[in-house]
């Protein structure tokens, strides 16, 4: 890749483009937070950003925060409340417009697994059994997936991660597709996009199966299909995702002041 930007930077910018000005938005740590603050620095100056612990009005200082309550994000907050407030009153209530979550595994209906990986066929089975690899659990992502108006999933595009059916639903996407979500009392609408290291998937409006919507300039339909564990359909209007503009890159790099995204 000879582009004047890294794949991580493309992914952060593509995610940030999903966030609109004035929206109430919740970001996790790491790439997700950089994507959110990039949006704020570039095209969404009035985005109302929050973290799930109830830290409001803050922008990170001194580099990428180590965590949602890191001193790097607590240093210039205007308000500290609580998890009940942030995840309950603002997210599960349906007030939050958009959230960004990560995924260790994601399936064709946008269901997310961040809990564990099992041996063998990867399926847990009807009896709960010990996982081969324990991951981080749902955290606030389940709450965002249930409550936020829409949410965006970020994931590394590899066939083992993009599976037909996740082995454990930590955070619900469209479940079995169609209107399956409507059986539950969710206040949120479901995942609007999966931003990957290679491109962007979006759900078919009816079946809710995720289709290829765009490929990053350094990728292709073929590469993406080869790295997807289900038979990925391509949306009729799929196209190459525009590469970062100089303004976007400059804004992102102001936010990513220690260059965390440029190292990869």
């Amino acid at each position: 890749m000879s582009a004047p930007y890294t794949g991580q930077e493309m992914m952060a910018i593509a995610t940030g483009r999903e966030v609109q000005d004035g929206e109430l938005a919740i970001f996790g740590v790491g790439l997700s937070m950089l994507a959110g603050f990039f949006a704020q620095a570039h095209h969404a100056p009035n985005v109302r950003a929050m973290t799930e612990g109830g830290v409001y009005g803050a922008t990170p200082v001194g580099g990428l925060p180590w965590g949602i309550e890191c001193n790097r994000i607590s240093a210039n907050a205007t308000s500290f409340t609580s998890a009940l407030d942030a995840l309950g009153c603002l997210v599960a209530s349906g007030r939050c417009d958009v959230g960004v979550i990560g995924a260790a595994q994601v399936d064709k209906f946008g269901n997310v697994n961040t809990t564990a990986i099992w041996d063998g066929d990867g399926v847990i089975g009807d009896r709960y059994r010990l996982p081969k690899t324990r991951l981080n659990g749902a955290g606030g992502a389940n709450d965002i997936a249930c409550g936020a108006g829409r949410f965006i999933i970020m994931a590394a595009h590899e066939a083992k991660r993009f599976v037909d059916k996740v082995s454990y639903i930590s955070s619900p996407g469209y479940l079995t597709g169609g209107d399956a979500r409507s059986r539950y009392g969710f206040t949120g609408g479901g995942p609007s996009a999966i931003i990957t290291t290679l491109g962007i998937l979006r759900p078919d409006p009816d079946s809710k199966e995720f289709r290829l919507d765009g490929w990053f300039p350094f990728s292709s339909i073929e590469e993406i299909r080869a790295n997807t564990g289900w038979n990925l359909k391509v949306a009729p209007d799929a196209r190459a995702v525009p590469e970062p503009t100089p303004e976007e890159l400059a804004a992102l790099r102001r936010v990513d002041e220690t260059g965390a995204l440029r190292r990869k």
Partner: protein
Amino acid sequence: MPPGKLIPLSEAVRRYTRDGMEYASGAALPVGSDAIVFGRELLRQGRKDLHAIFHCNSQQLNLLAAAGAVAKAECGFSGLEVFGFANGLRRAVESGRLELEDYSNLSMTLRLLGGALGWPFVPATVNVGSDIQDRSAFAPDEYPCRSKIATVTDPFSGREIGALRPLIPELAAIHVSLADPLGNTIMLGTEWSRFELSRAAKRVVVIADAIVDTACMRQYPNLVRIPDLVVEAVVWWPFAAWPQSSPGLYDVDEAHMKLMNQALATEAGTAGYLRDFVESYDDIGGYLDIIGRDTVAALSRGPTSFLLDPYRSWILPPEVLQ
């Protein structure tokens, strides 16, 4: 003014904890406020078979799990944020030594709220429809599980939503920034779910980085979200959350966060960590020595230290407290 409810850390652990108990920490996200030092003392006194209730995993749960002191745990997030997977907890789960019941970060708070309000169940518009509802490590044969998270029908609309089990832990050991000797406390930084926990638990012990005169509380009563009337005992222990952070008082110790998590990835590493960082001090002075006096000084000069400024003049000196 001291002692009031002030007691030594070792005494608090001796008096209020027992093997097999439901032990809750105020653990916030893994880089934030949590009385990790209380967990160290639990290990020093050999407590075991704990049923840990942690809003999120922290280095405390990671350590207790690695050392084999936890039989069951419930939490919403089990990692260490940007520091990666929690190796000690992970090892205990994968080996089957520890049953980890999964919830989400909101549902843990809601369960504490339900315990605080004396409700038999708590409505939830989250967790339903996922394997958090359908699977239970505590009831592995039940699938789809409904004894962990049930459903309830709204009597007004007929709509079905989730119903969570309230939490009423036997003990909560809650980290706070400041406490007075009576048990009034100030938290700097997000409360996370410490407010709800302080009302849900049967007993509350607070562990404060600094002790202030009660006059501080009378000046800032709106900051006193956990007041004396729900607090059983107060422990003074500086850098109680180390290597995690305490906004206003000290920053996260990045090097030790990594060292600790790396050590907890193996049995041998854990034994070494216990020897060097759990069994190795006799008092607060010795504890600050193992952190390193230079590190203590450097972490105290963090970007949030201005948050402590309004309260500094009320901080009681060590000679009054020991």
